[in-house]
């Protein structure tokens, strides 16, 4: 199999397979899921049976259905947040590299300020002050994540901006938008795509962590992080339900990492 005109190694194929399964699970959740995610169907912690393959949870809801619906929220939200943080981070990072020392200084110090606080604690403070609204969650994590992407894109653009073709574009009188989009972005794309995969993983885990702490996605909506939180106590009593959402998080993270490792190595080979 080939992607970006490169042959894919076995490990990357496994990663791709995991990602495709997860995404299609999320996309087709309403069709695939045997029950609605929030319906109480029976006794709490019922063992797996023919009707409920993965059993029932603490409130008697079908675990498989919640896992599929949870994929929607967990993956969809991560994708949205990562895309948003990349838009902010890449634009500001490239601008800082191209627009000269003063603007670079202002942007970089602002980012340093945000970076100086632990992201999880910062997010917890913001979310507990502004409330756990989904929009607040998205914007907060996106901005926190954008600081890292700012760093990466700034250093990428710094290297590209010193090349003569960027100077040639400036001498031609091209505006900022053209230089960022046509001269720099195409040459920074490969490492940025690799970074996107990595960031997606982190965002995913970050949301799970916030949900686990009760600040992320609110019930009755299912997501993998809050499912781990809800089910974890029962592990003491020998109920293995917690391993399904936890395993899903771990598998998807590994899958994405396998895919990203390959993207990073091919983009490194090109440079």
């Amino acid at each position, binding site marked *: 199999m080939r992607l970006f005109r490169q042959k894919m190694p076995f490990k990357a194929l496994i990663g791709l397979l995991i990602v495709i399964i997860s995404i299609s699970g999320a996309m087709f959740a309403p069709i695939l899921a045997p029950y609605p995610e929030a319906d109480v169907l029976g006794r709490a912690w019922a063992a797996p049976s023919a009707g409920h393959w993965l059993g029932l949870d603490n409130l008697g809801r079908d675990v498989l259905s919640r896992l599929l619906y949870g994929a929607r929220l967990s993956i969809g939200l991560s994708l949205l947040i990562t895309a948003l943080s990349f838009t902010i981070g890449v634009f500001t990072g490239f601008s800082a590299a191209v627009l000269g020392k003063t603007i670079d200084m202002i942007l970089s110090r602002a980012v340093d300020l945000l970076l100086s606080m632990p992201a999880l604690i910062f997010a917890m403070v913001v979310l507990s002050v502004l409330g756990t609204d989904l929009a607040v969650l998205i914007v907060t994590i996106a901005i926190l994540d954008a600081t890292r992407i700012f760093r990466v894109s700034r250093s990428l653009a710094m290297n590209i901006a010193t*090349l*003569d073709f960027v*100077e*040639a574009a*400036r*001498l*031609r*009188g091209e505006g900022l938008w053209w230089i960022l989009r*046509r001269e720099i972005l195409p*040459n920074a794309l490969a490492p940025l795509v690799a970074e996107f995969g990595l960031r997606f993983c982190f965002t995913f885990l970050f949301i799970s962590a916030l949900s686990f702490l009760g600040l992320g996605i609110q019930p009755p909506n299912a997501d993998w992080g809050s499912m781990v939180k809800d089910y974890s106590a029962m592990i003491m009593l020998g109920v293995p339900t917690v391993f399904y959402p936890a395993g899903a998080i771990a598998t998807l993270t590994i899958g994405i990492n396998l895919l990203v490792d390959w993207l990073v190595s091919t983009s490194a080979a090109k440079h």
Partner: protein
Amino acid sequence: MMDKRTEDTLLEVEGLRIEAASQTDVRSVLVDDVSFALKRGEVLGLIGESGAGKSTIGLSSMHYTRPGCAITAGRIIFNGRDIREITETEERSLRGVKIAYVAQSAAASFNPALTIGRQVCEVVVRHKLMSKAAAKARAVDLFRSLDLPNPETFGQRYPHQVSGGQLQRAMAAMAMIAEPELLVFDEPTTALDVTTQVEVLAAFRALVRERGTAALYITHDLAVVAQIADRIMVLRHGKMVEVGSAETILHAPQDDYTKRLVAERNAAVAEYFVATSKGDDTTVLCMDGLVASYRGLPRVIDNVSMELTRGDTLAVVGESGSGKSTLARVIVGLLPRESGKLVFQGKELSAALAQRSREELRRIQMIYQNPDIALNPKQTLLEIIGRPIEFYLGKPKKEIKERVLELLRQIELPESFITRRPPELSGGQKQRVCIARALAAQPDAIICDEVTSALDPLVAEDILKLLRRLQEKYGLAYLFITHDLGTVRRIANKVAIMRKGQVLAYGETADVFSPPYHPYTGLLLSSVPEMRSEWLDEVLYKRQVSVASVVSS
């Protein structure tokens, strides 16, 4: 019992073949069926363009290949033993000790955090061949014979504290410290200024002759190799073209390719450009007392005045650090001038790029030194050449494409190249695309910043011809920045010689280069290597007489 061959033959290479596995998994042959023998104390020059396999052969004599390459056939016999068959331990005791390597860029080869002396002594100390004190004494001795200043304390300095020429010589000292039997010089003077090149070359030659060390001298410059080599091997595309004594190759070459190389090099020294006056004295660009500097540092451009008229080629010549490239940046507005006037077609130009009108920007175009980074690798030639047409002239898509095709014809590239991207082109082709991009804006003046110095001699020659033809056709004015006097003589009708930000001499090319000239002009002129093997001796003799006055000025 010694083999008869080993008595005077140090290195013998037979049927050497080196291949590289490329990305497409097809093996490409870098060096094919190369054989030569090197006697003790003999210097063999390896000549060829980039990609000819010179460096690959040089490195293979140490049984080393760049990552991804491998020696696939042939024998490399050093001191009677095939070094392809020795163990890794033996190989380690060979490298740096019996065979040493002098790389092109000393600046990139030295560790900036350690003193020069420590790095020079490292080989013998690590191999436990000498005590630290003995190694240090040997290093001082070498510094002295390489004519380095203050040989006793030179080793205590860090790489950034010495000049490029001195560092290159320090690297030769590093190579010589273990008294190797074979030295491999890989373009050791290419990155140096002409005046420095003379000194370094003289030091290398004295060293090799004094100690009777055999050497492989790799270079693309026939005149340089003429000074040092006993025999010369000409290479092209990894194959041997011609081998012979230096005299034969330089004065009676047999092969067509060698003949062309020799002819090109002769032309560079002998030919003068005959000014074809256009009878048009319209001033295009007038500089008057330009002054510029980088943020509070000393002036890089100091009171520079010159004039460019229609159809003119004004060459700005100088060594690195002379401010010639900064002058280009000041003219285009990348570095705003501090004072002085810059008048373009009767109208004063703003100091900063941002304040200039699009029309003003269109009329002055620039071509860069390194075509590899002057073109966006992700854009097609249609986008690259078409963009100025779209940006400045606002033509519709169809017209842009027609114009790009026309420009491709003018720069002598096939029309099918319109969909290609820069990585698919050769260096010379890329530089042609840069020319087309500049032409697309229909400029009045083009600033050429060292446009031929990254190219092989024969390719550079074609680029110069193309530029001249385009000039005649469109009446373009060129400001030609270069360090190569050969280029100046062939293309420029006017010349300005710069040193430390100031113009030392300015006028018609023939006038500036005829005696009586400024002493620095004389120094530059005498430093251009000639293909006579006695040239270096003559220069050195003359220098002893006259150089002191220039250097002290």
